[in-house]
């Protein structure tokens, strides 16, 4: 079906107001059932799952344009970037486009805002939908004006033609229906003529955030809202054996104590009353604890001894038998915490059998499904609306807080309930990035080229997101408990623990095995970049170890083994911007390191060069200078890209130098910032420079996670350069560096 509707179709009653699809969730279920009408060619981005244009763009009678995305604003700036895309293709000024994000009642289902997919999936969908809408509007104008469409153009919210002809979008849209399926291809604006895209448009959400506007789910205040605090078990699997809540119930402002199996919470009129009540309630509860956690000092041994399911994800034999020098190494990383600055929060209201949850979950649709299952409610009676929280960097406590709020709201229908996790609860109960072990082995031939590569990674799954109700803490703890689901590996090419386990380098013989470990000693799930951080850390550290054995410059060594020209360009850009020169003199106790990866071998390319200064007496590592280059395909907001890469670099620096979840035989012990220290200003570099490689017209590539892996490896390589010591076990703390250096 062509983009422009025939008059006949309009007269047949598809008209009326444009794009005013049903606000009830049933509207989307309807859409999904209609069969695609294009010729089986895959629709671009998320249009494949939500093919109707009206799902993505709405034009009001007054001409107001609203974009809809199933992705969430997490602080990565995508709300702004998606508005840029829509504004570009519709020829509108940026300020003329509004956006609605992640709401099961209003937006398409785009799963999780994760995996750096937002630009690739939602950006692509919105771009194509906007471009196709533009063509429809132009076509309608042509029809009304009785002129050929190619004589018309769009400007400032109208379709214009010669001799002052002008029809506003609002006017045009009034006579159209956008219940029209998208086409596989669109006439996209030429990058050379961008007005809004590839421009550092200031973010739409920052002004409110710096002037005290209501910007977060934590800022919501609904009439009659109650404040809730949870009393969580003291360790995994603890059972609540005794509770005398009479003293708590008598406290000022307390409305109700809710106990459902091992789920325990208190609700009060005012927030501090809830906090005080929670503490008293915690003392009134007795628990039977059972958990047996492994020895954190022997985590690698523990992981290697767990039962494993082996998946060979690469098995290439294209060369002769291995001869020459063989190098082998084992690397490890501990459990890592998301460490969101704002502990998780959610607001829920159960009104007339309809449950609404305002939550900062990354996946409103999956979380809603899990909550509906937990409560035993029909899916269409539960609505999850994404409302920003603090940065989550993956699956933190947000989904669980949403479930907590829903469970409590169901206990007090008609009253909004706000659940705020405490700092200690966020640290202790969030699902961590899994501890991992990797082993690498490779052989160099006489020319210093890698001929054989063997790599294995041992890891839990990297996603226990809802999913099923059993993913939610509240559902696991309530009396009618849901069992946690069976962990499953995320398949390649995305991967979980094996994400970026396959090197981008061209080795004639290469084998990569993912040793998937179903047993999870600690609660784990997705942390920014999933297994990529550790695999890139390992591979890129190992490449330097091989370069050393081959007496080769680390940058040249990598270029030699790459065939992907964009990868080579990225490496060269970073090296040049850094001033990387072989054999350049370095001060004592200073070093340089380099690393590169293409996230998932599918998304953005990133190369990182760092300079470190090691204080020999203390082992302290400072990083005065970082230079990164990134190729993220067609750039929408260059400032947003820079912000994400800078952020990934500093966050990964913190992970790799300082962080490890602490636990003893029964409990998590890293419960606040004193016991889980992260980067502070005194250790922040003097300069971080990000070079963006311009790729006009190429597909969007997600860049939100591409900096995590290379940063860690670059630091390890720089420490090795500065001290002659190779550190393979994260975190590279001052104590470890000092122990390696000796006196």
């Amino acid at each position, binding site marked *: 079906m062509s983009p422009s509707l025939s008059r006949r179709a309009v007269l047949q009653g598809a008209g009326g107001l444009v794009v005013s699809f049903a606000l009830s969730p049933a509207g989307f279920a309807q859409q999904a059932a209609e069969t695609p009408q294009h010729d089986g060619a895959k629709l671009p981005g998320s249009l494949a799952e939500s093919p109707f244009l009206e799902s993505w763009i709405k034009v009001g009678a007054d001409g107001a344009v609203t974009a809809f995305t199933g992705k969430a604003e997490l602080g990565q700036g995508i709300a702004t970037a998606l508005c840029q895309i829509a504004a570009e293709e519709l020829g509108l000024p940026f300020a003329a486009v509004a956006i609605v994000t992640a709401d099961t009642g209003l937006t398409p289902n785009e799963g999780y805002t994760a995996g750096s997919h937002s630009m690739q999936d939602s950006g692509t969908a919105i771009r194509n939908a906007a471009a196709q809408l533009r063509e429809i509007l132009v076509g309608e104008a042509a029809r009304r004006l009785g002129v050929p469409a190619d004589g018309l153009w769009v400007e400032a919210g109208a379709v214009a033609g010669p001799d002052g002809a002008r029809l506003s979008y609002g006017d045009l849209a009034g006579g159209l229906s956008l219940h029209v399926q998208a086409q596989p291809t669109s006439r996209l604006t030429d990058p050379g003529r961008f007005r809004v895209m590839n421009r550092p448009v200031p973010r739409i959400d920052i002004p409110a955030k710096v002037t*005290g506007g209501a*910007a977060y789910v934590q800022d919501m205040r609904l009439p009659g809202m109650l404040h809730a605090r949870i009393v969580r078990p003291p360790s995994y699997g603890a059972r609540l054996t005794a509770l005398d809540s009479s003293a708590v119930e008598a406290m000022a402002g307390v409305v109700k104590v809710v106990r459902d199996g091992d789920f325990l919470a208190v609700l009060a009129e005012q927030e501090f009353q809830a906090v005080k009540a929670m503490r008293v309630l915690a003392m009134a509860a007795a628990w039977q604890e059972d958990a047996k956690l492994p020895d954190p000092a022997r985590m690698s041994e523990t992981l290697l001894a767990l039962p494993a399911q082996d998946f060979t994800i690469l098995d290439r034999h294209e060369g002769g038998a291995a001869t020459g020098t063989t190098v082998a190494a084992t690397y490890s990383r501990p459990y890592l915490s998301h460490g969101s600055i704002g502990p998780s929060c959610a607001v829920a209201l159960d009104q007339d059998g309809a449950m609404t949850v305002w939550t900062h979950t990354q996946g409103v649709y999956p979380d809603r499904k899990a909550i509906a299952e937990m409560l035993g409610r029909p899916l269409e009676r539960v609505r999850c609306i994404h409302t920003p929280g603090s940065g989550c960097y993956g699956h933190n406590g947000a989904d669980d807080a949403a479930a907590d709020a829903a469970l409590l709201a169901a206990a007090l229908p008609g009253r909004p309930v706000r659940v705020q996790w405490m700092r200690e609860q966020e640290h202790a109960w969030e699902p961590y990035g899994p501890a991992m072990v990797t082993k690498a082995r490779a052989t160099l031939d006489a020319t210093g080229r890698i001929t054989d590569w063997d790599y294995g990674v041992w890891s839990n799954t990297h996603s226990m997101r809802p999913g099923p109700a059993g993913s939610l803490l509240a559902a696991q703890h309530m009396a009618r408990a849901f069992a946690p689901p069976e962990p499953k590996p995320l398949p390649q090419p995305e991967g979980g623990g094996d994400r970026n386990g396959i090197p981008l380098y061209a080795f004639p013989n290469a084998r990569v095995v993912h040793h998937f470990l179903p047993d999870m000693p600690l609660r784990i799930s997705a942390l920014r970049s999933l297994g990529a951080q550790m695999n890139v850390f390992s591979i890129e550290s190992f490449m330097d170890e091989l370069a050393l054995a081959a007496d080769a410059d680390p940058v040249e060594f990598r270029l030699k083994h790459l065939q992907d020209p964009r990868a080579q360009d990225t490496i060269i850009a970073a090296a040049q911007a850094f001033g990387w020169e072989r054999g350049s003199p370095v001060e004592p106790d200073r070093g340089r390191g380099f690393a590169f990866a293409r996230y998932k071998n599918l998304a953005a390319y990133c190369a990182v060069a760092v300079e470190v200064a090691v204080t020999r007496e203390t082992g302290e590592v400072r990083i005065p200078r970082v230079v990164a280059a990134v190729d993220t395909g067609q750039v929408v907001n260059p400032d947003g890209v820079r912000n994400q890469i800078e952020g990934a670099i500093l966050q990964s620096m913190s992970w790799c130098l300082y962080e490890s979840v602490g636990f003893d035989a029964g409990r998590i012990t890293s419960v606040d910032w004193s016991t889980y220290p992260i980067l502070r200003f005194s250790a922040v570099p003097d300069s971080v420079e990000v070079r963006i490689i311009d790729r006009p017209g190429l597909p969007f590539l997600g860049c939100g996670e591409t900096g995590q892996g290379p940063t860690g490896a670059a630091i390890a390589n720089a420490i090795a350069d500065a001290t002659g010591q190779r550190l393979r076990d994260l975190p590279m703390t001052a104590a470890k560096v000092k122990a390696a250096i000796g006196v």
Partner: protein
Amino acid sequence: MIELKVNGRTHSVAADPDTPLLYVLRGELQLNAAKYGCGLGQCGACTVTVDGEAVFSCVTPILLLEGKEVTTLEGLGTAEAPGPMQRAFIEEQAAQCGYCIAGMMMRAQALLQKTPGASDAEIRRELEPHLCRCGTHMRILRAVRRAATAMQSAAAGETGR
């Protein structure tokens, strides 16, 4: 009832005297900027100023504050008319998730009010109690530097120097 002076206005608040200022600001006074990050004085997200000095509002009970002037981020300006610190953070786009930013800005404001010519090293040291998990540190430092320059030239302009 305790009388609190916040952003130049006096409020009679009903909260108990042992209530941390943070909850009074966000609850009774409906001010959003100061945030709950830890409740332990470890992260800085709750920072406001009291008589020009930065304090953690999450560990400061209101019984300490009678007769003192509390300033929150809302007191530095609005979205329509942002103050120099706020303008600087907007111009530098110094936020990712933004949750830590209000606290950073208040500590920086207190520093620059006392030490208008604060060096980069002093700014860095002053912000040491504050955590940012998104890694926005470089921009935060640039924004504070930008605010310092703007505030100094404004002051120079006022005195006609």
